[in-house]
């Protein structure tokens, strides 16, 4: 299915579908992508599926019509993408998925950080800081999101296993800051002795801090009233807040690496390269998830003020130059 | 010139008998033109209303009367032409208060706001304010109560307007219009919804005001009213001014000729020959009762017979008719059509059983104005338009064309939306719909309401003709013209039939019976 127009020697056309454009994290990804495409010498076509897998399927179709040689996507619904992958497989167009791992079908490479690890890291940090006892609120994302679910499950399991003395209140928030704030407020009223908050994404960041401030709970970590707050994403604002002592930790989701390695693997696929499970040259490991699906598990570092190690999890300081949040804007 | 109009008993309003009153006219419209798109509603029309007179404005449906009213009251500007009040140019269009000091109006279209209370409707936009600048509801209610007392309208000023009867609402409108203290009052078909007693009350009040020197512009399709209370009459036809003359100098036939542009006189009232007593009974109403509306109503209609169902508003005549056609389900009693009992409370069963129906008000129940004439006229007979639920547009249009010819509906074709027809023609479409299924029983409720004289004549002729083919007809109306074509008239009062008058009744008897003064036979 080579269209006659492109002779092959010119820069290969690749398609990248952005999953959504209304969160900080994905917007950083959107910002990085063209940057790395230029670096790698790829001709980039982009679409936005606005978190709607039907739209994603349609976008894939228009990529095909435009004769792309490879597609990177981040299907937020990992089940529904199967038919599209099948179509692409029959057309021999390689696919790299970012952030999520399709439930079925073949892809050339999955580039993602392990969402379960996010939950676990947050759990280890909070567990250590709380000394294994107390009450914690977990502000979940959307019930319908795989990544959110992974984080929820990992966090809850880790708490149950390692810190049984900690009671977790899980609140679904639909990734909505106002709703998150409302739920947190209710829980704080009910249990004024809540000592920790895990936000599964930075969407609830400002609202949570504001609420804590209002209740006089935004105090130094040494203060007994202090509430430990762990965020997730690693956007610049979180790093600043860690530096300022407003929150205690975050898990930095590597938006830059997502963009970089998505395109890296696409180019490799077009060039006919193949990969094997094992460590990579960029401080991560490729694992074989199932037959025909490799996954490059990028590291998602925990960031804390002192850069210490918590429950066996090492962390970086917020001003670490390797954090993507310190490299944009 | 001034009023020795037939039944008028009041003294002449213009003292200077025989000469034009001195001073400028109260209101004067000259050379008024108004277009709506391609419709010319007024074409260089004019009218002059002199101080103290009661001036009638008549014309067929669509002649432009109401349009002139809205221009005279400042609701909308004319395209060209000039309005003067007492010799002064009319106020600016935005200055509603200034307009209202010149002229008050009861519009043809209701200007009652159903959700608001009677008090607020009466005094809308004329609120009493307390010291804080906020509305003082208590004072407002008191003022409203005083206003209503003048009209002896017994309604609670705190009732919502939507809960009032038609007549009560009309009086609220009238009371409001008259409460501005304007010396010039326009009444656009104020009696269209009032029964005889209410009309009398209105006219008493109008005469009071006439005696106080208030000037009226009065619009009505009831020509006898013109002769009863008006001094001057202006006739509009096709958006143009035709004639202005003292009422006394324009006999009825000339008036009608001026309105219709057609010299042939109205036919004399028909003298029907009632069908032989042996004709089949096509409609048998037995002991029909609808609680709160009417009780124990029984009568029969024979093939070819026209039976009137008279009564004032609230007498139950409309409800009886609606029960016959299935719009209402009776609590007791039966309706037999042509020997069978259509299921009670089902219009489709009644239609299938051979009933044709002209509802009370064409806008409310008669027409889907956005749909074509063909669709409207054949709405009652979907089964004849094709098989298996499908319809053939060709067959529909053929049937519609037949009906259009039969009823002489003026239209370029069957696919014109009925909204494009004049009032009289719209009513003909409603009639066409009623006749489409060749009914054995035709039920008509106020079939000529709001249609002009010529159309009225045509429609009543049609009824006569249909009866001639063996259909039994019920005419529920309080208009004497409608009842005149009947072989006999049943008069209802407070939900019961109180009189059965064979043809040949006098107007007085029937009006008296409708008022509840039964003349024993």
């Amino acid at each position, binding site marked *: 299915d080579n269209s006659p127009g492109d002779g092959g020697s010119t820069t290969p056309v690749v398609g990248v579908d952005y999953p959504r454009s209304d969160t900080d994290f994905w917007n950083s990804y959107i910002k990085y992508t063209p940057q790395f495409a230029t670096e790698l010498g790829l001709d980039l076509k982009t679409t*936005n599926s*606005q978190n709607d897998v039907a739209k994603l399927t349609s976008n894939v*179709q228009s990529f095909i019509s*435009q004769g792309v040689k490879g597609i990177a996507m981040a299907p937020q619904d990992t*089940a529904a993408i199967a038919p599209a992958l099948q179509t692409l497989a029959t057309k021999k167009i390689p696919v790299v998925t970012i952030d999520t791992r399709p439930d*079925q079908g073949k892809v050339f490479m999955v580039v993602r950080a392990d969402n379960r690890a996010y939950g676990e890291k947050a759990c280890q940090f909070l567990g250590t800081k709380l000394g294994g006892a107390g009450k914690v609120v977990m502000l979940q994302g959307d019930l319908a999101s795989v990544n959110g*679910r992974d984080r929820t499950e990992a966090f809850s399991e880790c708490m149950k296993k390692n810190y049984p003395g900690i009671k977790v209140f899980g609140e679904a928030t639909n990734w909505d800051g106002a709703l998150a704030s409302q739920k947190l407020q209710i829980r704080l009223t009910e249990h004024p002795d809540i000592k920790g908050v895990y936000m599964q994404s930075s969407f609830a960041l400002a609202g949570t801090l504001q609420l804590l401030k209002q209740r006089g709970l935004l105090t130094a970590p040494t203060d007994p009233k202090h509430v430990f707050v762990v965020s997730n994403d690693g956007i610049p604002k979180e790093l600043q807040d860690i530096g300022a002592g407003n929150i205690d930790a975050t898990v930095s989701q590597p938006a830059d690496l997502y963009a970089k390695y998505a395109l890296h693997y696409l180019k490799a696929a077009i060039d006919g390269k193949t990969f094997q499970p094992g460590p990579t040259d960029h401080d991560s490991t490729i694992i074989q998830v199932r037959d025909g699906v490799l996954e490059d598990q990028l590291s998602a570092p925990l960031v804390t003020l002192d850069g210490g190690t918590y429950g066996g999890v090492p962390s970086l300081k917020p001003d670490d130059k390797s954090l993507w949040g310190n490299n944009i804007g | 010139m001034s009023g020795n109009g037939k039944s008028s008993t009041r003294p002449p309003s213009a003292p200077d008998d025989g000469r034009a009153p001195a001073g400028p006219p109260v209101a004067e419209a000259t050379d008024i033109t108004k277009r709506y798109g391609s419709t010319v509603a007024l074409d260089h029309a004019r009218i002059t209303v002199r101080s103290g007179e009661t001036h009638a404005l008549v014309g067929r449906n669509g002649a432009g009367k109401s349009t002139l009213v809205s221009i005279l009251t400042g609701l909308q500007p004319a395209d060209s032409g000039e309005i003067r009040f007492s010799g002064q140019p009319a106020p600016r269009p935005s200055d509603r208060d200034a307009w209202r000091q010149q002229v008050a109006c009861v519009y043809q279209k*209701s200007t009652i706001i159903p959700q608001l209370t009677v008090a607020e409707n009466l005094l809308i936009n004329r609120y009493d304010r307390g010291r804080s600048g906020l509305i003082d509801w208590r004072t407002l209610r008191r003022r409203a109560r005083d206003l209503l007392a003048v009209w002896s309208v017994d309604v609670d000023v705190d009732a919502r307007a939507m809960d009032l009867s038609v007549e009560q609402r009309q009086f609220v409108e009238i009371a409001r219009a008259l409460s501005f203290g304007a010396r010039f009052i326009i009444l656009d078909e104020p009696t269209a919804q009032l029964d005889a007693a209410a009309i009398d009350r209105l006219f008493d009040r109008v005469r009071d005001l006439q005696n106080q020197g208030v000037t009226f512009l009065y619009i009505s399709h009831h020509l006898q009213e013109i002769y009863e209370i008006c001094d001057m009459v202006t006739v509009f036809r096709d958006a143009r001014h035709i004639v202005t003359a003292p009422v006394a100098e324009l006999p009825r036939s000339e008036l009608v000729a001026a309105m219709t542009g057609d010299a042939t006189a109205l036919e004399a009232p028909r003298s029907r020959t009632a069908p032989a007593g042996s004709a089949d009974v096509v409609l048998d109403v037995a002991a029909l009762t609808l609680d709160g509306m009417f009780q124990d109503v029984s009568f029969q209609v024979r093939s070819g017979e026209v039976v009137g169902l008279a009564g004032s508003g609230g007498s139950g005549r409309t409800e009886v008719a609606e029960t016959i056609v299935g719009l209402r389900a009776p609590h007791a009693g039966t309706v037999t059509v042509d020997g069978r009992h259509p299921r009670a409370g089902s219009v489709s069963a009644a239609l299938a059983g051979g009933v044709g129906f002209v509802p009370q008000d064409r806008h409310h129940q008669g027409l889907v*104005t956005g749909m074509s004439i063909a669709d409207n006229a054949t709405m009652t007979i979907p089964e004849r338009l094709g098989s298996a639920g499908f319809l053939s547009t060709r067959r529909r249009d053929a049937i519609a064309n037949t009906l259009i010819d039969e009823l002489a509906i003026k239209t370029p074709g069957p696919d014109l*939306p009925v909204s494009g027809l004049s009032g009289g023609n719209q009513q003909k479409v409603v009639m066409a719909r009623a006749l489409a299924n060749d009914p054995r029983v035709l039920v008509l409720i106020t079939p000529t309401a709001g249609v002009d004289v010529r159309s009225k004549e045509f429609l009543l002729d049609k009824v006569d003709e249909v009866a001639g083919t063996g259909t039994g007809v019920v005419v529920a109306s309080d208009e004497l013209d409608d009842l005149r074509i009947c072989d006999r008239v049943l008069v209802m009062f407070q939900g019961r039939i109180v009189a059965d008058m064979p043809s040949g009744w006098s107007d007085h008897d029937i009006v008296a019976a409708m008022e509840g003064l039964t003349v024993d036979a």
Partner: protein
Amino acid sequence: MPESLTAADTATDGPAVTAGRTPRRPVGKLAIARLRDLALVPAIVLIAVVGQIINPVFLKPDNLINIVQTMSEIALLVLAQTIVLVAGKMDLSLESTFGLAPGVAAWLTVAVGTGHGIGLVPGAWSIPVTLVVGALIGIANAALIVRFGLHGFIVTLGMLIVLRGLLTGISGGQTFFNLPESMMYLGNAVWIGIPASIWLCVALFAAGIILLGYTGFGRSLYAIGGNVDAAKAAGIRTDRVLWIALIGASVLAALGGLMLSGRLASVAASQGNGAIFTVFAAAVIGGVSLNGGKGTMFGAFTGILLLFMIQNVLTLAGVPAQWIGALNGAIILIALVVSRITGGRAQE
């Protein structure tokens, strides 16, 4: 009451009179009515030309099929909504039915363990289950609106929230996958080189055109939407017609949802969320009146087609991700405004 007043009045004006003076019979009028149906065709052509200039892929058969295929499921919602709107009602809950009906089918048929279904009934039941759920929702709507006389907007707004919540409830917010074969068929089959969903969508719209224009039932819908009391007085069983319309609409929505689930081989907990905005926009751009009694199936079809063509062009044009929403919205708003202006009447 005052509403009918307005309706009657506004109808009075308009172009009728000129026609009134030419005393010929048939001809003209119908042609104009048909023309109004074609109101969006110039816009569609325009978008096609613009699209082709922006990206030569636009007019390739592949891309055209892509457009119609992606719109086919939502188009069924538009079809359903048009029926309801013509009858003078509104059904906001269609978007939730679109997700819940196949969701319930998946929940009941997907085996335990393979995709968080409960595997109660065999896979072959999935299509009947979907349609039955659609019908039940329609019955609930109709009961509340027709039987109890509640306001359609309010009832279906409430239903929208409840049904969406039910889908989240049974799915636990997760996506159902490993759907039974029968559920996947409609969304994936290809008949004579063209996806089945396109055939189905086009066939249903053709049926819709016939239904609205050439059956007694269809004319009843217009009559009821135009003036329900007049329809009643003409012997139309208004309640029955409304029941059928509301139930039929829900079943169509369920069918649309089924097709989408098939195409995506899954039912997401969010399936259909927000679709109602697009549906209303398409119907209205296509000339269907929100006040009832007006509009055609063909017009509605051009409405949804136009919207999806616009989206496709925007995608092909590579508009920056964060501005697609605003641009799409602006084009819709302009289309709405223009279609209302050219459609004449201010208020409808």
